[in-house]
């Protein structure tokens, strides 16, 4: 089986400071990988480099494209990379406001990616938008409301619908449950788990919440000061942490 996504020695510096250094991993189709670490450990830098939002200083980010097989997305042309960004890739922001158009109705938000890849039939676009709102448990009556009239949890679900509508194969998520209260978090995680399994998505989830990775991720990567300090199966890393920092992280989780 060939990997869907391969990262080799990815390095990003901010001047003299390290953003992330020598990160390598493979991601296989249908696999969900979690990246955990404290604030400032380079998780978001890494994710932005992977998704093409930041240009890495060294390394390769290979993706198994539908047309030409494995391609390095760092060196591919910008139109191709942006095309990937609205077809086979999706990016779920921590703050739904960053990923949504707040002045455009929910239906328009979901339809944007469809129109961006050439859909020109209003009825079809609207039908698909209604279908996707249903899949993320938003009432179809709310289709013409703006996201600003939605609750935080609904905005986050709308953002997910907007990203998944073109049937991507790889989803990047940056703290998808950040800022939501626990019951809404639980519902969102449930929904995400269902969608990931049902669509056979691969996903890379950045979070500092170990409960999220325990639920969603097959594999785990622990980062500290821009370096990957430990990798392994999620349960293995969380139940039997080897590196000192991982042990600290796991033991820091508050028990109710």
């Amino acid at each position, binding site marked *: 089986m060939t990997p869907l996504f391969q990262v080799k020695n990815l390095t990003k510096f901010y001047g003299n400071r390290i953003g992330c250094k020598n990160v390598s991993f493979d991601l296989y189709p249908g696999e969900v990988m979690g990246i955990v670490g404290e604030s400032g450990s380079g998780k978001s830098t890494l994710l932005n480099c992977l998704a093409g939002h930041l240009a890495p200083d060294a390394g390769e980010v290979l993706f198994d494209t539908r047309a030409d097989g494995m391609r390095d997305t760092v060196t591919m042309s910008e139109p191709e990379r942006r095309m990937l960004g609205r077809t086979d890739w999706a990016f779920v922001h921590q703050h739904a406001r960053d990923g949504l158009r707040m002045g*455009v*109705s929910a239906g*328009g938000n979901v339809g*944007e990616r469809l*129109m961006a890849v050439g859909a020109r039939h*209003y009825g079809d*676009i609207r039908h698909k938008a209604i279908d996707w709102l249903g899949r993320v448990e938003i009432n179809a009556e709310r*289709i013409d409301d703006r996201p600003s009239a939605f609750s935080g949890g609904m905005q986050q679900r709308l953002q997910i619908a907007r990203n998944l509508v073109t049937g991507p194969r790889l989803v990047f998520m940056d703290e998808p449950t950040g800022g939501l209260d626990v019951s809404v978090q639980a519902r969102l995680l449930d929904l995400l788990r269902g969608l990931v399994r049902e669509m056979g998505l691969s996903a890379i989830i950045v979070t500092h919440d170990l409960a999220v990775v325990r639920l969603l991720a097959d594999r785990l990567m622990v980062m500290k000061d821009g370096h990957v300090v430990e990798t392994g199966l999620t349960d293995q890393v969380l139940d039997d942490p080897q590196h000192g920092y991982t042990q600290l992280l796991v033991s820091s989780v508050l028990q109710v």
Partner: protein
Amino acid sequence: MNQEYNFAYLDEQTKRMIRRAILKGLAIPGYQVPFASREMPMPYGWGTGGVQVSASVLTPEDTMKVIDQGADDTTNAVSIRKFFEKTAGVATSEETAKADVIQTRHRIPEEDLREDQILVYQVPIPEPLRFLEPRETETRKMHALEEYGLMHVKLYEDISKNGAISTSYAYPVKVEGRYVMDPSPIPKFDNPKLEMAAIQLFGAGREQRIYALPPYTKVVSLDFEDYPFEASKADHACDLCGSETSYLDEVIMDDAGGRMFVCSDTDFCHSRRAAGHVGAQGVPFEEDAA
């Protein structure tokens, strides 16, 4: 002609710079060419971009016509016409057929233009994507990479809110299958006329952009397959000249619901009345003149 000014107000180096922008615009139809817009002796929003473009293409032998919303006799049209009479000393006319250069605000004349004519538009906001994407860096990238999905999001919003594409002016068009362009706030009724024999130049003074359509350039109004583009106008005939095909202005006559519809193109209406056409509320041309 007042000799204290260079011909047509602008100095020759400035005109040269603007002509270069115009040529580039003609070479890449629909592409917004940045240019170093000058301060003009009128406020932004009064057509400073159009005036600079007109000044750069005028020659002393030209006849000029200026229209504002189709009319030759409104403030904007009169003051710009006077400006060129004073600074360039060119002949002016209200007749579309006699003009070599026509500067327009928000209308295309009803009469078909010829290959030896130039139509200059005054443009307030040249960027069709502006109200959807406020970042200039991003809109430039979207133009460069032909990412125009967002333009349809605007039309989608129109339909979802109003049941039809309610954008009625500044209706976005795609030029030669490449650039999406704002045709300036002309009514969408005029959009089909953008494919014409004359050269069309668009000048945005405050925004410092010039763009152009060479003669017979293919211009397609954006739409959806199930909601096709429609060039709409008031469903009425002109009350002065009886024309059923021209674009109409609605004029409120009193506070008891009285109204009349008249051609927005005053020259078109005038020449039709001179030829003997009379509308529902009009009087014969000869009586009116007397």
